[in-house]
């Protein structure tokens, strides 16, 4: 677009203004403000007392903080690989030519539109002992002897399983769609050529489909790690962070510290740890994306 410099500057500013005002006020300014808060004993009614680096030293010795970060990490370690495998399998199913193709696509994505609260409460009731859907189903098909119950929500290992299953069910739809559209972008000629050479289904999958999906797999992996690390509500509703705070993720600890224990300054300090962790992850993601772009 040709126009003189000053006019271009003014017009660009006008177009950018609404975004920049909101962005400045509610993203940049809180970021700066947060740094200030970490140096205070800062309560909900804004009673402030300057305490220097105390919040930081306290945090580094606070076992609860490290435990909570570890719990979020466990959740990342469980959900990321299972999410990728499940998303690929579902995409393979919906990519096969059949009369039910459209049905599969709708069904696998459907849970993703549910509100996180609905998905969590559905999970909570489904995994309940005695009356829940899962145990009843296991009784019905004989996998669980009648009279015995699995306590999905109060036994530590089982509660990780329940939390992960619900999360996968609720969020896999997005990744499934990404894989499906990537699969549909693979040119048919490649498959035809492979068939002519007599390649088996399995061979085609490992040698053609999977390598072709590599870039989107990298993207999904990073996005999933970031998303899983920010987990909060499912765990808050389904196990409440229990048993004995053993599933409590870091975001829940930040919430509890700030709003239940009335210590916003300390909560802000913790959130900068989250910030640094997510910043590193996002930087890796951005760097990978750019490298991908540079090659293309």
């Amino acid at each position, binding site marked *: 677009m040709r126009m003189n410099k000053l006019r271009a500057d003014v017009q660009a500013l006008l177009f950018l203004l609404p975004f920049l005002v909101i962005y400045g006020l*509610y993203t940049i300014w809180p970021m700066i403000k947060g740094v200030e808060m970490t140096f205070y004993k800062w309560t909900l009614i804004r009673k402030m007392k300057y305490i220097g680096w105390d919040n930081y030293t306290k945090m580094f010795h606070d076992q609860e903080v490290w435990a909570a970060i570890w719990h979020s990490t466990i959740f990342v370690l469980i959900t990321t690989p299972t999410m990728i495998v499940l998303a690929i399998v579902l995409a393979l199913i919906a990519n096969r030519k059949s009369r039910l193709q459209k*049905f599969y696509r709708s069904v696998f994505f459907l849970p993703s539109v549910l509100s996180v609260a609905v998905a969590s409460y559905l999970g909570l009731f489904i995994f309940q002992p005695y009356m829940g859907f899962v145990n009843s189903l296991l009784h019905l098909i004989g996998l669980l002897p009648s009279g015995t119950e699995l306590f999905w929500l109060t036994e530590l290992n089982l509660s990780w399983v329940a939390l992960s299953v619900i999360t996968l069910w609720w969020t896999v739809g997005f990744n499934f769609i990404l894989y499906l559209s990537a699969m549909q972008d693979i040119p048919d000629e490649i498959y035809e050529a492979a068939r002519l050479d007599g390649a088996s289904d399995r061979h085609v999958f490992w040698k053609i489909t999977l390598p072709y999906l590599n870039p989107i797999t990298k993207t999904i992996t990073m996005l999933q790690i*970031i998303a899983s690390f920010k987990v909060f509500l499912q765990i808050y*509703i389904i196990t409440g962070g229990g048993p004995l705070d053993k599933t409590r993720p870091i975001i829940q600890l930040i919430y509890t510290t700030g709003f239940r224990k009335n210590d916003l300054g300390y909560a802000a300090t913790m959130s900068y740890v989250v910030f640094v962790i997510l910043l590193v992850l996002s930087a890796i993601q951005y760097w990978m994306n750019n490298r991908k772009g540079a090659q293309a």
Partner: protein
Amino acid sequence: MKWFYRIISILAAFFFVAPIVWMLVVSIKEEGMKIITLVDWFTPPYSFAVYHQILMGTKLTNWIGNSFLVAICVTLLTVTFAAMAGFALSKIPFRYRALMFFVVLAGLLIPGEAIIIPLYQVAKDQSLLNSYQGLIIPVLASPVAVIVLKSFFDGVPNDLIESVQIDGGGTWRIFMNIMLPLTRPALASMAILTFIGSWNNFLWPFLSVTDDNLFTLPMGIPTLMSSYSEDYVKPMVVNTISSLPIILLFLIFERQIVKGVSLSGIKG
């Protein structure tokens, strides 16, 4: 082998729909009955009495209304602001364009969860807590939307723009008459994703609103649920009523939603 694939596919579909079907079936059972095995759930008697109770006796419909109101406002404003910013970054040759683009990109790295505590303090200082404005305004700046839309605007040929300029059209007309209509699919996809995001947004409403008349669905549901402990019928009615509007929207807009998701993945 073909049968093996079919069985796996059907099983997978079953596991994805089963919880939703279970929710619907339980929601139309009679309250307080002895319901233990799976067979009990799927045999009559059924009744809609609890639906009536929940719709009339709670604020659930209010909260659904709030969720829609907030999601619609957030969607319209986010996409408008992002389109304007993306247009400036893409087509107006101003000084500091590279710097400004970098500032927006940096926003991608800032996780909302990490600034939520100071954001609460900022909103409090501006008296935005417990208000619709407070639910809407702080979430309107979306760097992702700006960057996705900018990349779509980059694809609009400059010849088209120059032809409008020759006719004496200004920047605003170029934006309204050329850029927006030509990138409508991208705008629609962005709008749908923003809508779903807002519909599911929990943490910010949860912290910023304490007045239950202003609750959105994700925060209203837990307050209702905590008072139902004896059986599953009421909770499942709450879940069903909360889900039906968004499920209907999904069935209507499925194609656009799927397209939106795949676009965001390619760009993300």
